[in-house]
């Protein structure tokens, strides 16, 4: 470490910490606990709560010479400051002496606690935070045990303030530490909370509409040192000590946030384990100690009553419950009859083990395994993905990030938060998109292109970077040139490549260009550099790594050519009803799913799968970190893990696949996949100490985020780390074909109405509405008044929608959220007219 170290003494222990460290953190690093409420290691200190008072002394100096004065023993004389100081705001200095456990300091803290309790209701027996409450713990340890304050003078305030749809505030319990306010401002980039009034009347208020609608709001309940902020999901749900904790990985987006599932056996569930809450688990390289609200609240699908619990086969046109044996026999018969004409379709929602077995089975019968996620670039991530050891949280001044064709705030909120953080630390952020997104506010360079010109814009950047002649037709002026200059000058470069507004062919072209930029600027093959694809599913990268490939935009033909179709964890008919035709008829259809989807309704055999909370496995994140998740609850009904269903099905077909455990399947993965060669379930479970310390006895310090003792996962190195001579061939995007009407572009909304969100009723008030967004000018020419009903003509059907005009949306384009009940597979031209 090149940082300058400072020596000081805390309670007679010698400590050496980097210059600028606050006394409280220095003490923590030396293993000395100074109690805090308002201080949090991830947020700027303000010294509001006064809990961290200590005695601080500095060496006495001769006023004329500046020399340190020594006592008779030759030791420096220490002059103690007249009053107790807040250790969270005082930076360390050379020779400083800190007394944490002196009589004066102890008495000071005792009095602060007495003050804090004068307006606290002490309703611990009914408080959700009871058992993991900083105030409770610190009063037990440092409090005086009795109060001199008159009970009648206690200030009573509102106890059930619905701060937002997801967060409830108890004003009496609040000790005004402002952690939530500062978290929203500094960490979440969404300053919607504030203090109103002052003194004893001070209270937390929200200033968004709807109230407290930040995507990160749940984290405030983790860092709230008391029970003032609680979630609607867990409120009055259980006591903290009653619950078991199981490590897991979030399945909502490719970030791969580390989770802890808190479960409890409940009588109303017939003694079964029930998931009571989802908590973040520390992984400083992935999600630090935060998770987004979707990860926290949208877990109910995994244990929903609507799940499939028994295998079904079609008899006389109807799906009838049957035994696994009969269902597998029937499925095997159908697949056998199809010979090599079997097509498999799977999404990146399921684990590597499932996808590996799926691919192996399809390969063995001579069929084809298709990945349903229509985004290109998986093989490029394998080559020039981010290097081993990449930590977005360490990007800062001198580094650059390019985000293209993606709205990270909606698609992967934690990446958005970390990219924003990097920009705040001084990294150059280039945001390229066809419309305004929330990341624009933090961008040094905003590049605006027209939908369908994303790849051309990328090529323009490449041209400006390389000056290549064959690219000259893509050459462009400002602001592309200055953005290219910034990317070239950066020491490290990470590119987030999305798929907004792109067809598969355009996505292929754009990801090629992104990879080419990285290679040309030599930002590959090392940590903090490389390509991150913003995948539509949590394990899409894993699916690529397991050998699955997209249908390149022609799923319909693949189905039409098939004699039998085997579909796992995806609902193609729900996403695109026109596909139903190609799946019907005498084509044999096996669907392996959680829910009775529109696709499953067409199936000849339906196989009920387990959700991620009932089984174990591994996911590979967008940063290509392989991470393990563990079974938290007992499996529902007769459901089985996907990989195991495939093994059984393979056995019925006379193909032998690993059937002992997920770990054994992973050993096979490691054998057959070069990049995974060094990984096994043991190495995935390895962990090391991380800073800041969280989730231990000292919950007051970092909050109730869980400490990671179950594994930090292993990041897979891209091929570029071995082979520096890599060349990427860029491809020209498909020619722009002028068509009539408006270009309908599907965009991602975090709270969509998909099968994995809808079972979480808490989120219903926050769900995105199926509205058609358009530019002000287009609204005028169509004759739309804000909120009017319009008709959308696509694929021969008519959809009725509400239209909203907004600034920042390009002309000639209408936007509609994905998964909101109106299926749209790819951008397409549509007719929009006012409803008669």
């Amino acid at each position: 470490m090149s940082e300058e170290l400072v020596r000081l003494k805390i309670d007679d222990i010698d400590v050496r910490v980097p210059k600028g460290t606050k006394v409280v953190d220095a003490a923590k690093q030396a293993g000395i606990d100074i109690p805090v409420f308002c201080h949090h290691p991830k947020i700027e200190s303000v010294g509001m709560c006064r809990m961290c008072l200590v005695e601080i002394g500095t060496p006495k100096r001769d006023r004329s010479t500046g020399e340190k004065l020594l006592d008779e023993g030759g030791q420096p004389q220490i002059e103690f400051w007249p009053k107790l100081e807040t250790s969270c705001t005082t930076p360390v200095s050379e020779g400083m002496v800190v007394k944490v456990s002196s009589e004066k300091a102890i008495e000071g803290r005792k009095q602060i606690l007495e003050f804090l309790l004068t307006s606290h209701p002490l309703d611990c027996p009914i408080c959700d935070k009871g058992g993991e409450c900083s105030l409770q713990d610190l009063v037990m340890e440092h409090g005086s045990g009795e109060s001199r304050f008159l009970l009648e003078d206690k200030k009573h305030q509102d106890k059930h303030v619905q701060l937002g749809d997801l967060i409830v505030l108890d004003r009496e319990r609040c000790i005004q530490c402002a952690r939530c306010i500062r978290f929203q401002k500094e960490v979440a980039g969404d300053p919607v909370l504030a203090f109103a009034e002052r003194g004893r009347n001070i209270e937390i208020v929200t200033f968004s509409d709807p109230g407290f609608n930040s995507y990160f709001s749940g984290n405030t309940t983790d860092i709230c040192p008391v029970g003032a902020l609680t979630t609607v999901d867990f409120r009055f749900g259980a006591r903290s000590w009653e619950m078991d904790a199981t490590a897991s990985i979030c399945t909502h987006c490719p970030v791969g946030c580390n989770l802890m599932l808190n479960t409890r056996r409940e009588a109303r569930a017939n003694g079964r384990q029930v998931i009571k809450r989802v908590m973040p688990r520390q992984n400083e390289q992935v999600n630090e100690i935060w998770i987004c609200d979707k990860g926290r609240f949208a877990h109910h699908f995994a244990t929903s009553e609507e799940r499939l619990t028994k295998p079904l086969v079609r008899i006389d046109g109807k799906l009838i419950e049957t035994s696994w044996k009969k269902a597998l026999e029937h499925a095997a018969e159908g697949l056998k009859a199809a010979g090599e004409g079997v097509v498999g379709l799977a999404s990146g929602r399921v684990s590597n083990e499932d996808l590996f077995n799926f691919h192996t089975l399809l390969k063995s019968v001579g069929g084809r395994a298709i990945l349903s996620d229509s985004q290109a670039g998986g093989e490029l991530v394998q080559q020039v993905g981010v290097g081993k050891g990449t930590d977005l949280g360490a990007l800062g001044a001198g580094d650059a990030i390019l985000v293209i064709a993606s709205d990270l705030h909606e698609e992967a909120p934690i990446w958005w938060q970390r990219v924003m953080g990097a920009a705040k630390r001084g990294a150059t952020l280039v945001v390229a998109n066809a419309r305004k997104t929330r990341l624009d506010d933090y961008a040094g360079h905003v590049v605006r292109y027209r939908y369908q010109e994303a790849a051309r814009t990328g090529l323009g950047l490449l041209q400006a970077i390389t000056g290549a002649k064959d690219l000259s037709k893509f050459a462009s002026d400002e602001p592309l040139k200055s953005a290219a200059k910034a990317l070239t000058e950066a020491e490290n470069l990470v590119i987030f490549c999305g798929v907004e507004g792109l067809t598969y062919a355009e996505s292929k072209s754009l990801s090629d260009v992104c990879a080419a930029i990285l290679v040309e600027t030599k930002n590959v093959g090392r940590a903090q550099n490389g390509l991150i694809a913003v995948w539509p599913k949590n394990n899409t990268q894993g699916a690529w790594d397991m050998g699955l490939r997209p249908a390149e935009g022609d799923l319909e033909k693949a189905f039409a050519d098939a004699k039998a179709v085997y579909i796992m964890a995806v609902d193609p008919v729900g996403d695109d009803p026109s596909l139903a035709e190609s799946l019907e008829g005498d084509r044999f259809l096996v669907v392996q799913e959680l829910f009775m989807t529109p696709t499953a309704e067409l199936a000849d055999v339906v196989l009920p799968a387990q959700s991620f909370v009932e089984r174990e496995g591994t996911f590979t994140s967008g940063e290509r970190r392989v991470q393990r998740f563990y079974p938290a609850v007992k499996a529902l009904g007769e459901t089985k893990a996907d990989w195991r269903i495939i093994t059984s099905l393979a056995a019925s077909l006379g193909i032998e696949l690993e059937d002992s455990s997920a770990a054994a399947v992973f050993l096979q993965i490691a054998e057959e996949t070069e990049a995974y060669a060094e990984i096994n379930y043991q190495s995935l479970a390895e962990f090391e100490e991380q800073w800041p310390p969280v989730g231990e006895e000292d919950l007051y310090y970092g909050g109730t985020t869980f400490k990671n003792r179950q594994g930090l996962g292993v990041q897979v190195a891209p091929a570029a780390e071995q082979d520096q001579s890599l060349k990427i061939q860029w491809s020209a995007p498909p020619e722009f074909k002028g068509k009539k009407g408006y270009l309908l572009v599907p965009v991602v909304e975090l709270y969509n109405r998909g099968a994995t969100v809808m079972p979480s009723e808490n989120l219903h008030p926050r769900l995105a509405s199926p509205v058609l967004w358009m530019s002000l000018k287009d609204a005028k020419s169509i004759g739309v008044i804000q909120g009017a009903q319009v008709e959308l003509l696509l694929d021969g059907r008519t959809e009725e929608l509400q239209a909203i005009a907004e600034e920042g949306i390009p002309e000639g384009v209408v936007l509609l959220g994905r998964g909101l009940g109106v299926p749209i597979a790819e951008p397409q031209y549509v007719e929009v007219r006012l409803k008669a």
Partner: protein
Amino acid sequence: MQIPVSEIHEIIDREADDEGSIISALEKVQQHYRYLPKEALILASQRLGVPLSQAYAVATFYNAFSLKPKGKYCLQICMGTACHVRGSPQLLDQMETKFNIKAGETTPDHLFTLETVNCLGACALGPIVVVNDEYSGQMTVQKSDALMKRLIRKEGLD
């Protein structure tokens, strides 16, 4: 009360410099309208790049700002120790009766607002009554009655 947005814009623009000028901008708005209209808070937060939450926090923190319309005449009676022992409670009682409002309230015609303050730092002159920044010391019930009459006459209400 209908307030034209452009007028608020003008006031804020005169003070607009950076996010540090929120207090002076709000002060000018307060002086002009004798309170902070909701629109002014929203406009100031947008114009100065300060989150609305923070603008509201500032507006509620300082006593100089009011979110409710104040009267044309703001009567402040000092309730500090010195003024208190010299009889300011009687003055307050007298004014409350006269205007038929409680301390902290405004008359329905938006002419008079009655407020108590805790010390004005001029204890030797107590009891003190302040009318729109104009101090009157050593007040008695008679003197305050005359003061109120004068204000009422000025407004042509007697």
